[in-house]
């Protein structure tokens, strides 16, 4: 095979055995790779009703056919398992260098089954896999773990690992690779910790075969020349200020979630926006493998209260730990981000859960004596302290570690958790960005911006703008953006490059530029229609996993605050999210019935019957 390596490693943690199996070329073509392969294996290898912490749950790390090929931003992999936070699937995606190394070791994917009785890590060297004891790594941070593994294997190896949060099954624990890149969402790190799998380290030096290297390189040059020409004329905001630049956009549209989503603008926003990060904290930009954008931020905080060095924060982190908690101290937000990276926590769920706790205290539903300290809006020191306590499940951190839905429910007020399918939202207020509300409610992983990102056409005007306040006509472009996200995630690309440079210029966002890359890499002779249908197939297969796990329309929801309480002030004043109206239209577009269950004809059409 070309593009794909044609091999999948199966690791049985129960009996500590490993073996490889061939990747079926037709499965590879139909599901592309990454996220698609992940759902293919999940639906075939496990019962969707299984408990996420049962031995039956499997965890898949899968690269895409463009990962490591040199296609711009072809750096990514996907972690899929059944989520302990949501009970649905995970789609936790990350870049950096680990995914390319995994591919170069001769593997498209690794599947972990069962549980180990003692801590282990997996070391893969040129396709040979070995489970090694990890007792000496248990309890270590992600940075310490990475350094120790590199010192005892190969300094050129790449490591994905969990920190203390994953070991303690914090329900939103992440898997960190290359120290500071995160497969952040839905508690993938908690599943790894439950399996006593501390890390995966890979040293791969092989070549990734391409079907038509000359055609691939010629197309790659054309795309990169066009990109470089554009950024010479107008520097890319992502390069200049990282994703943190988005604060300017959401604040001015009135959709920057603030005070646990009680308002859409934040008075302190200029203190936490991208320009401030660049001016006061940026050491240098950082790129993932093969990325011309370099949106990563290496930063340093000198303020003695919050001193440290590391990576971040991203926009989502700034919203969650910042405006959502009314914290306008960027040093504290950055420090809390460092702690999340080192303990292995998802910054979005962390910040949102603290914000939820702040509102529970404000309304008298949670007593500060239970927390062990005062907890008021804007308390920067509390933010940092509670983040650390959560990663270690120390004191009140043990309750925060369950996420905002379980915390708010334990106080008798689940309506104050700003979640869909029990997962916390990213930073775009659906009352003023209607399509985003539909995307949150129908995402297979719950609150997420990456499984279809309508902010692109609603806020950023890419590929062309649509009024964010309008709900009519949103179902079709939301479906299109979800489908293209499934293709991007499965190919091993990053949305930041692909959505601007490799898709059609209308709201159908067809994978016009991904097609030549895939065909010259794999030789699979995709037509545009086949590739588009693969996106629909992946989304529908994920939906069927959810249906079998017991999810229906009743789970495609948003908190009442967003659908019934008008935005109190700011540019989106007076608006509510019109989810129910959009849902009917959305299900029709998908070929799902009114309960959100795919029709039998639809399943047959996609080969999923």
């Amino acid at each position, binding site marked *: 095979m070309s593009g794909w390596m044609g091999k999948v490693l199966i690791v049985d943690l129960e009996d500590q055995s490993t073996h490889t199996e061939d990747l079926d070329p037709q499965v590879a073509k139909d599901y592309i790779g990454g996220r698609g392969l992940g759902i293919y294996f999940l639906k075939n290898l496990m019962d969707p009703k299984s408990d996420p912490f049962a031995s039956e749950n499997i965890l898949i790390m899968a690269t895409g056919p463009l990962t490591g090929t040199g296609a711009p931003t072809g750096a990514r992999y996907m972690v899929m398992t059944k989520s302990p936070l949501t009970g649905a699937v995970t789609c936790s995606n990350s870049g950096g260098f680990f995914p390319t190394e995994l591919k170069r070791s001769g593997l498209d994917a690794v599947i972990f089954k069962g549980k180990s009785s003692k801590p282990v890590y997996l070391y893969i060297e040129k396709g040979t896999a070995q489970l090694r004891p990890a007792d000496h790594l248990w309890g270590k941070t992600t940075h310490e773990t990475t350094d120790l593994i590199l010192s005892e294997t190969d300094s050129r190896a790449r490591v994905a690992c969990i920190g203390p949060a994953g070991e303690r099954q914090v329900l939103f624990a992440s898997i960190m690779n290359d120290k500071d890149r995160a497969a952040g969402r839905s508690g993938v790190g908690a599943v790894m910790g439950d399996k006593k799998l501390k890390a995966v380290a890979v040293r791969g030096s092989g070549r990734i075969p391409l079907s038509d290297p000359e055609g691939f390189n010629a197309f790659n040059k054309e795309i990169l020349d066009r990109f470089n020409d554009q950024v010479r004329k107008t520097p890319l*905001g*992502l390069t200049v200020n990282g994703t943190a630049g988005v604060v300017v956009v959401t604040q001015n549209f009135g959709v920057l979630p603030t005070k646990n989503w009680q308002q859409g603008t934040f008075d302190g926003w200029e203190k936490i926006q991208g320009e401030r990060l660049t001016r006061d904290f940026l050491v240098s930009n950082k790129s993932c493998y093969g990325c011309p954008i370099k949106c990563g931020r290496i930063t340093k905080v000198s303020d003695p209260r919050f001193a440290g060095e590391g990576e971040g924060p991203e*926009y989502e982190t700034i919203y969650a730990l910042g405006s959502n908690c009314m914290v306008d101290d960027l040093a504290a937000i950055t420090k809390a981000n460092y702690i999340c990276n080192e303990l292995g926590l998802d910054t979005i769920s962390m910040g949102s859960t603290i914000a939820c706790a702040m509102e529970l205290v404000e309304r008298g539903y949670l007593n500060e004596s239970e927390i062990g300290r005062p907890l008021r809006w804007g308390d920067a020191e509390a933010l940092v302290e509670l983040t650390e306590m959560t990663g270690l499940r120390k004191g009140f951190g043990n309750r925060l570690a369950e996420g905002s839905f379980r915390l708010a429910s334990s106080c008798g007020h689940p309506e104050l958790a700003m979640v869909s399918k029990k997962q916390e939202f990213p930073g775009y207020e659906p009352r003023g960005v209607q399509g985003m509300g539909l995307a949150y409610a129908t995402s297979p992983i719950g609150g997420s911006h990456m499984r279809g990102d309508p902010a692109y056409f609603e806020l950023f005007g890419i590929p062309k703008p649509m009024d964010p306040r309008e709900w009519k006509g949103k179902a079709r472009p939301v479906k299109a953006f979800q489908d293209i996200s499934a293709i991007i995630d499965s190919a091993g690309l990053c949305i930041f490059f692909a959505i601007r440079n490799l898709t059609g210029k209308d709201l159908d966002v067809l994978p016009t530029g991904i097609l030549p890359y895939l065909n010259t890499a794999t030789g699979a002779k995709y037509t545009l229609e086949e590739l588009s249908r693969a996106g629909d197939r992946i989304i529908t297969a994920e939906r069927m996993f959810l249906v079998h796990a017991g999810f229906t329309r009743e789970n495609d929801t948003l908190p009442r605050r967003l659908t019934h309480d008008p935005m109190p002030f700011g540019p989106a004043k007076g608006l509510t999210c019109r989810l129910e109206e959009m849902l009917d239209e959305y299900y029709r577009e998908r070929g799902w019935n009114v309960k959100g269950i795919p029709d039998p004809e639809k399943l047959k059409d996609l080969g999923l019957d």
Partner: protein
Amino acid sequence: MRVTVKLYNEMKRFAPADQTEFSVELKPGSMAVSILEILKIPEGEKFTLLVDGRRADAGTPLFDGSTLVLFPPISGG
């Protein structure tokens, strides 16, 4: 009528006398293009223009008390 203008990030380079936020008196019935002319923003410059929190363009009408915001193309998240 009076209109408030706010410039962010790279659009600050068009700020008159380094004033990134200022108010200006315009004739009733003016459109956003009046502000773009005052700021001398050249043809071909890429930016996002909001009037009172809504995406706008050169032909968008302005009213007394309107706020016009300009920032460069930004995406991500």
